[in-house]
């Protein structure tokens, strides 16, 4: 048994209590521990990714209880990819939060940050449906704290809405899990994949209800229309580095959809399973359109980015909804890209808002501010990445999605909507950029931001996220090769099931 698999969960889980109990009085020590822990997490995720790329799924039995009786963590190519993405994003965001002083604006930023990482990593690794619920709760509870970091009336108001929506979502998750358990008698995902095929004829409808309830829960997390309304208020009012980290949270929803509806309720699941794609595709296309409309209508930069993020979830879930290996590989490429693009945009928005004084992130002309040229270029790069213009990875991602949609029933609709919304997104970002950077050049005077000392490190952290997109475009060949392998592994769930249950039970049930 490879003990490294549990490290991405255990490491932040140990570090967070240490931060909150032992070193809570010293911000410097907290920063050091948190940074070292996150760096170690990146190293471990990288090692796990290399390992997963070379072999089949590996399992870690918690407490050495054999599956399906105990809980297993499963490392396959998909979970390794998500772990690595989380680690890299967390490292950049933490650098930004420390160097810009965001972590000093409230208490317990670092412990909450580590708990958040624990929840996200756990959700990516677990092979048990109820355990997925528990890790969802861990990441949500930490996100409540992070979202409220720094306080303030507007943030608190948005926080109450965010928490209530997610509490309702958690309740639905429990209803879904309960229904599935009542029908199949198991919650281990690999065991479920076997049991779902042998469901008694009378119970099929109940199983379908459970499967679709689960889809609703994941759709809340993935901000799929009509369950997206919590996202703009929450992310726009959250501290910007936290919003950048939250870019991975919507992807937890997308990951769960990919995992559950390829493994458990996939093609082999028979009549009892619901075809998630039929529901997902229209919802994803509407998400794309509504998100893009929001990009045009937003009055502030943060809110504009939130809607761009919703639109990108629309593109991503459109590709997921096709449920073919090629489309899933495209979806995963776009997933990595959209996480980086959204995070970079949130960080740029914070850099701009910090320099515009009382004008904040509102999209209106204000006098010139410090480092306008540099920030304008960063914004330009991040915006063309998000809109999907060449040469950055957004273009390649959308190209892959379009290519994988070719030949299906809905090709014309998908192509039209993705291309049209891309154009509208470009218009939206151009409008925002001209209001923030160009029109300001025409005005008299200068804004002297209160923070006279302008640290370099936040800009470096933002540039690093942008560089991630450049690397993703430059290495598109090897990356898509890896992702095609990932998709193949997802659509041949026998390997996963055999790794968890052993060859004998996987065949006989």
């Amino acid at each position: 048994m490879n003990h490294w698999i549990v490290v991405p969960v255990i490491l932040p889980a140990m570090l967070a209590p240490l931060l909150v109990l032992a070193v809570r009085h010293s911000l410097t020590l907290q920063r050091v521990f948190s940074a070292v822990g996150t760096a170690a997490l990146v190293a471990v995720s990288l090692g796990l990714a290399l390992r997963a790329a070379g072999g089949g799924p590996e399992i870690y039995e918690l407490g050495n209880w054999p599956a399906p009786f105990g809980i297993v963590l499963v490392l396959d190519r998909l979970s390794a990819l998500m772990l690595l993405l989380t680690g890299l994003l967390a490292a950049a965001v933490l650098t930004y939060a420390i160097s810009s002083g965001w972590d000093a604006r409230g208490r317990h930023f670092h412990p909450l940050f580590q708990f958040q990482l624990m929840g996200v990593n756990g959700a990516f690794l677990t092979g048990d449906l109820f355990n997925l619920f528990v890790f969802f709760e861990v990441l949500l509870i930490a996100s409540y704290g992070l979202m409220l970091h720094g306080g303030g009336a507007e943030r608190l108001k948005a926080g109450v809405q965010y928490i209530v929506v997610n509490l309702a979502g958690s309740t639905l998750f429990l209803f879904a899990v309960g229904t599935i358990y009542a029908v199949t008698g198991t919650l281990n995902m690999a065991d479920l994949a076997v049991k779902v095929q042998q469901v008694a004829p009378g119970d099929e409808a109940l199983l379908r209800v459970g499967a679709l309830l689960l889809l609703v829960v994941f759709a809340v997390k993935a901000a799929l229309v009509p369950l997206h309304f919590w996202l703009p208020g929450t992310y726009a009012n959250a501290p910007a580095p936290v919003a950048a980290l939250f870019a991975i949270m919507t992807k937890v929803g997308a990951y769960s959809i990919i995992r559950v509806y390829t493994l458990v309720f996939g093609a082999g699941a028979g009549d009892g399973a619901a075809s998630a794609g039929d529901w997902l595709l229209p919802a994803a296309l509407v998400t794309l359109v509504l998100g893009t409309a929001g990009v045009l209508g937003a009055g502030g930069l943060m809110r504009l980015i939130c809607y761009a993020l919703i639109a990108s979830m629309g593109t991503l879930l459109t590709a997921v909804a096709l449920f073919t290996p090629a489309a899933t590989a495209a979806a995963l490429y776009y997933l990595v890209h959209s996480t980086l693009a959204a995070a970079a945009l949130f960080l740029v928005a914070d850099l701009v808002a910090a320099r515009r004084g009382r004008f904040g992130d509102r999209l209106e002309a204000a006098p010139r501010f410090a480092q306008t040229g540099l920030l304008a270029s960063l914004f330009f790069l991040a915006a063309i990445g998000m809109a999907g213009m060449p040469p950055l990875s957004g273009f390649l991602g959308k190209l892959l999605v379009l290519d994988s949609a070719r030949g299906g029933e809905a090709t014309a609709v998908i192509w039209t909507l993705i291309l049209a919304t891309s154009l509208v997104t470009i218009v939206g970002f151009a409008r925002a950029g001209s209001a923030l950077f160009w029109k300001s050049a025409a005005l008299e005077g200068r804004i002297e931001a209160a923070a006279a000392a302008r640290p370099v490190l936040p800009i470096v952290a933002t540039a690093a996220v942008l560089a991630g997109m450049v690397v993703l475009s430059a290495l598109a060949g090897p990356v898509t090769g890896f992702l095609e392998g990932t998709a193949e592994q997802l659509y041949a769930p026998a390997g996963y099931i055999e790794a968890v249950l052993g060859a004998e039970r996987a065949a006989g049930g």
Partner: protein
Amino acid sequence: MELLVASGIGAMTAAGVYLLLRARTFPVIIGVALLSYAVNVFLFATGRLAVHRPPVISDDAAGYTDPLPQALVLTAIVISFGMTALVTILALRAYLECGTDAVDTPELDATAQEWGIQTGPAGEAAEAERR
């Protein structure tokens, strides 16, 4: 017994959903609590209802009830209890800071202003003074 449990879950869920859709935080919190009660009973019932059956192995047991849902319910109770406490405190803080307990209805505040009603702590202070 099945009918009783099922209709109990249904009634609690219906009331919970209704309250969840109200415009003020207090009914919303009660709604969340009711929903979590409903789901706890629901989870408990997923192992089928059995009377006088032990969940753990004993020598003189005629049969067993499914122990797993009981463990799941325990986890769900702990989480939902903690979350209800958190959302209560948070709603209180939001009320004190914003001066209103409306969840997402700017109109409520606007109406109150139109009628000259002060909401929130300031309003209560004014009320106390008038008395």
